[in-house]
């Protein structure tokens, strides 16, 4: 095998992977090891591959991904906390030929924005919702989220989430799967190369549903780590996620083509 220099490696004809032009060059504000950056890239790759760069409007949430519009190189609106599905509803109703998505975290989508989430799903708005669930409020410094696991320690459940006083974690993805307005509901992760490939297929299916005018909303949850909020190193946090988050939030499709998957 002949020697290959770095100058040869970076030649375009030798590259097997390139960053999508729909991600800006701005350095991501996410912690190293976090799943947000990968998920951003997957959404933008899908929009590029579908050729919808000039026909897409995205809605960013409040939370860690509040600055998603800095990184996603399509027209973007920044919503108030929890309200992204309401913005997206109106955008899609007024521009039915365009591609509309929201990108939201668990605090945004499953706590303060529960009403908007449930009703956009139940009306069957033809939008895509990408939902990052890391079981914690990352941006505000690691407080308890609606999705925080029982017993899990956060800044506002310092002795662990006590279900009796703090309530149960909300499995909102299973919940929206039950609504007649959702067409595709799935739960993915982006912590291994194979998981990233599966998550990308799911995101692409969600957007393809919208392009094909399928009746209903496509909802993709990505269970992610939050190594900073969980106070772990990135690799450790991924192991913890597999051992603790996945049993409670099992990976896989919940509803496909408008039909619930038998478990």
């Amino acid at each position, binding site marked *: 095998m002949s020697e290959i220099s770095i100058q040869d490696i970076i030649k375009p004809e030798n590259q097997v992977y390139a960053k999508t032009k729909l991600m800006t060059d701005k350095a991501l504000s996410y912690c190293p090891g976090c799943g947000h950056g990968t998920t951003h890239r997957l959404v933008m790759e899908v929009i590029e591959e579908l050729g919808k760069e000039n026909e897409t409007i995205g809605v960013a949430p409040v939370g860690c991904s509040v600055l998603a519009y800095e990184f996603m190189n399509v027209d973007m609106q920044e919503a108030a906390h929890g309200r992204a599905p309401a913005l997206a509803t109106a955008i899609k109703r*007024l521009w039915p030929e365009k591609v509309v998505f929201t990108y939201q975290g668990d605090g945004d989508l499953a706590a303060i924005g529960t009403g908007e989430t449930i009703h956009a799903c139940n009306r069957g708005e033809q939008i895509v919702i990408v939902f990052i669930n890391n079981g914690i409020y990352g941006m505000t410094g690691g407080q308890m989220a609606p999705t925080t696991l029982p017993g899990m320690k956060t800044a506002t459940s310092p002795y662990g989430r006590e279900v009796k006083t703090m309530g149960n974690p909300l499995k909102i993805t299973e919940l929206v799967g039950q609504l007649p307005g959702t067409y595709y509901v799935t739960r993915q992760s982006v912590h291994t190369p194979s998981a990233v490939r599966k998550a990308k297929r799911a995101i692409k299916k969600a957007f393809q549903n919208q392009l094909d005018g399928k009746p209903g909303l496509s909802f993709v949850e990505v269970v992610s780590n939050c190594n900073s909020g969980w106070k772990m190193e990135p690799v450790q946090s991924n192991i913890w996620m597999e051992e603790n988050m996945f049993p409670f939030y099992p990976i896989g499709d919940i509803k496909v083509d408008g039909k619930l998957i038998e478990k």
Partner: protein
Amino acid sequence: MGELRLMKGNEALAEAAIRAGCDGYFGYPITPQSEVIEYLMAEKPFERTGMVVLQAESEVAAINMLYGGGGTGKKVMTTSSSPGISLMQEGLSYMAGAEIPCVVANVVRGGPGLGDIQPAQSDYFQSVKGGGHGDYRLPVLAPASVQEMSDFVPISFDLAFKYRTPVLIVSDGLIGQMMEKVELFDQMPRMSTEEINEKYPWATNGKPVGQERRILTSLDLDPHKLEKHNHHLQDKYRNIEADEVKYELINCDDADYIIIAYGSSSRISQKAVQLAREEGIKVGILRPITLWPFPKKPIDELVKRGVKGFLSVEMSAGQMVEDVRLAVYERTKVEHFGRYGGVIHSPEEVLEALKTKIIGG
């Protein structure tokens, strides 16, 4: 002459929305303004003009639908009444910050809290001083008739897009519910996509080929940049104050005393003026049509002309009177009169207040 109809104020708002070329109405029912969405749903504006009408799950969702839709350059509108308008304040603050146009009509009822469903003018502070968090103002138009409920809709859309801001139409349960003759303006076309893209390069409706993406946000984590953005907003508000003040002077030429009243109170006060003049009391009315920007200059001119006193008549415990006092600046007497909590004052009560608080006081 346009088409004449006998309509409720709320129905006039709805019909005017369709005729003004509104692209989307997003609302939530609340008394005393539910006729707006009822009329729109019955009228099927989608078939008439292509206008979208959607009943939202809450006022919070409705105002955020306006954010989304207005942010794409479409003409969007909602209507509500006081408690619902309170719920919309978050959204209005965000839209003021992100500079998104929309029209919001408030058919005011008695408060605070759930209050009642009778007419009131007690949302003046909320309307003209900002309402939500942060340094912002919204243009506020105050119709005094069913005719103006119709006429002010296209005017509000023009202001909203001229200045990239939400615009409020503030009436009350009396104007919303009463029926009057209305001359409707002719159907205006909805804007085409080409027109939107040409006029509103900020509109986020899909990145134009070969151009930069557009972002609508009210967030800037750099305080110096945010201060600069606030300077820009304040410049805009000064321009609105300089160019958009609207008011009406009624019987003011020879008046010794002036009643300042808007909306329903201005109608009631016209009868009070008639009664006063029958007794030889020379009184006129200054009717603010824009509550913000407030007509400070005509008040100043009346003070300089030697008017002996101003009575601010409002169906509130005394809100607009503070702006009248600021304009008069202690140069002559200013008092407030008004019934509130949903009670409507009579012309006789207004005349009595003029006599005791201004003339004899």
